[in-house]
């Protein structure tokens, strides 16, 4: 195949990308009629984005509005990479979740999930717009790839976004734990030196807050109802927290350091922080804030549990990690080093994370009952 034919396979502008997007919706089984009056608008908050680069080696210089203002190709590549990863997660989550609409526990849950999926698509749409509008052919190629990778096939960039979300407990865990990571990523990009990227984040963060609220309140309603034992719920918490922590990337990350040097991606609390950034441990700092937030949230959720049920908690940040200095090492949910052979470890893991048997019990036993608050309208 000639080079020209390869290039011809990619859409030439954002309008063309929209055609691909429509095809993608059909391919993954998302019925466009579900959108109702919802429109995929491009939204910017230019006021909050700021005019001057806020951190890194270009601090104090005007923020970049266009590709040609960005001083180095490496910085352009870093921005394209950030936008691509963000866009990839948005479309992936819709692929993971849209099958759940048919089994929503209540109409409000269905509407909430649908709204979340509409907004995640809008976020992906916004990222594709940035790629197509500001980054020429390279951007258009990356925008096309956002619709080519697929969560069901396991080809999405980040691990959590290839994991199956089989039922509504996973959905609430995902929106609580994984979308919360999303909030961190969006906030870190909201101070970006590339102004269209920074200005995209405000409207996305507004929408993300509802997604997190849906997750937290869903878990609270499950705990309050008390049908699914906390012991079983804890296993799902353990499963999702470790993958959420991994999303922050490697320890001592040089790419995070470069992104900071370029002013492309800041700290979660960049505008509020009083201390200069520890550039060598940027991922760790954000992850620690996230971890603390998870613990605070879980204390609130656990408060409504029924009498006699064990308290829910956030497992140690060393448990079941796939990335960072604890990756592949064996620690218990309480952070103690595990002593024992492979068989003992597998046995231990099956006591603290969901097994096939747990999944079956959850779906076929507990979820056949009134497992979540307000599941059924029964009249007065």
């Amino acid at each position, binding site marked *: 195949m000639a080079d020209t034919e390869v290039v011809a396979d990619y859409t030439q502008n954002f309008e063309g990308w929209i055609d691909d997007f429509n095809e993608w919706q059909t391919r993954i089984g998302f019925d466009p009629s579900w959108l109702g*009056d919802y429109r995929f608008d491009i939204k910017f*908050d230019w006021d*909050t984005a700021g005019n001057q680069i806020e951190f890194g080696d270009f601090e104090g210089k005007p923020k970049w509005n266009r590709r040609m203002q960005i001083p180095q190709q490496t910085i352009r590549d870093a921005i394209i990479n950030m936008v691509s990863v963000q866009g990839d997660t948005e479309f992936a989550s819709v692929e993971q979740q849209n099958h759940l609409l048919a089994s929503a526990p*209540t*109409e*409000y*849950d269905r*509407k*909430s999930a649908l709204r979340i999926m509409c907004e995640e698509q809008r976020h992906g749409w916004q990222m594709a717009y940035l790629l197509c509008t500001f980054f020429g052919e390279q951007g258009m190629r990356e925008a096309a790839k956002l619709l080519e990778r697929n969560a069901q096939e396991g080809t999405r960039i980040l691990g959590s976004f290839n994991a199956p979300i089989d039922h509504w407990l996973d959905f609430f865990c995902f929106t609580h734990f994984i979308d919360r990571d999303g909030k961190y990523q969006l906030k870190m990009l*909201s101070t970006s030196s590339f102004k269209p990227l920074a200005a995209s*984040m*405000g*409207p996305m*963060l*507004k929408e993300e*807050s*509802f997604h*997190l*609220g*849906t997750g*937290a*309140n*869903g878990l609270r309603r499950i705990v309050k109802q008390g049908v699914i034992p906390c012991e079983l719920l804890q296993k799902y918490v353990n499963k999702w927290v470790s993958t959420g922590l991994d999303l922050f990337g490697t320890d001592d990350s040089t790419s995070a350091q470069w992104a900071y040097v370029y002013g492309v991606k800041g700290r979660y609390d960049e505008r509020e922080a009083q201390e200069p950034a520890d550039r060598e441990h940027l991922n760790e700092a954000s992850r620690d804030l996230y971890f603390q937030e998870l613990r605070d949230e879980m204390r609130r959720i656990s408060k409504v549990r029924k009498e006699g049920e064990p308290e829910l908690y956030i497992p140690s940040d060393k448990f079941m990690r796939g990335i960072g200095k604890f990756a592949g090492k064996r620690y218990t949910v309480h952070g103690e080093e595990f002593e024992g052979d492979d068989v003992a470890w597998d046995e231990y893991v099956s006591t603290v994370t969901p097994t096939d048997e747990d999944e079956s019990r959850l779906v076929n036993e507990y979820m056949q009952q009134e497992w979540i*608050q*307000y599941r059924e*309208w029964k*009249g*007065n």
Partner: protein
Amino acid sequence: MQHVALTSFNKERCRPFFDKLTEYFHQHHQSEEGDADGYEELLYRVRRPYTPEMLDMIDSWMGLEKRDWREETQREVMLALYAIRYPDTLLLESFTEKARSDLRRLSAYLHFTNHTYAIWDDDTRMGLVKLGIEIPATNTVDPFVYGAYVSAIELLKDVAPFTCFIEHDVPRQRLFQAALAAYGRE
């Protein structure tokens, strides 16, 4: 009127309100009047197909007297709850007099069935007035007045910074309407 109110909008004037929006929301939503648990339960309990009992539950949460409506009036309103599309309010103009007699009641039905329309409330209206958005007082359904009210809250949602949006699964219209009610009373 809607045109005048929204074109004279001053974003700077909203800053103190936006700075304390979360606090205002909790002040109203968690108050005895706000009855947060009752409100949140209604979000789940009111669902299609709508029944008169669901409207009764909304009336009860709103603290309204029992509806004194004829069968046809009730049918007319319930059909409109299915047909109306946010942010349209002109459909309300076609209602018969009885249905148009109480904007608070009707706006609550719209809110709990569509989740996008805001509940009409005089404290909320006063909150908007304090922000420079003049919405006239009314008890009866005026689609233009209510349309301006709904659009003004939508506008505030658009211009508010993301820090105003707390992690909650209540509709965003409720977040702003409840905060405006507390602000209007202050």
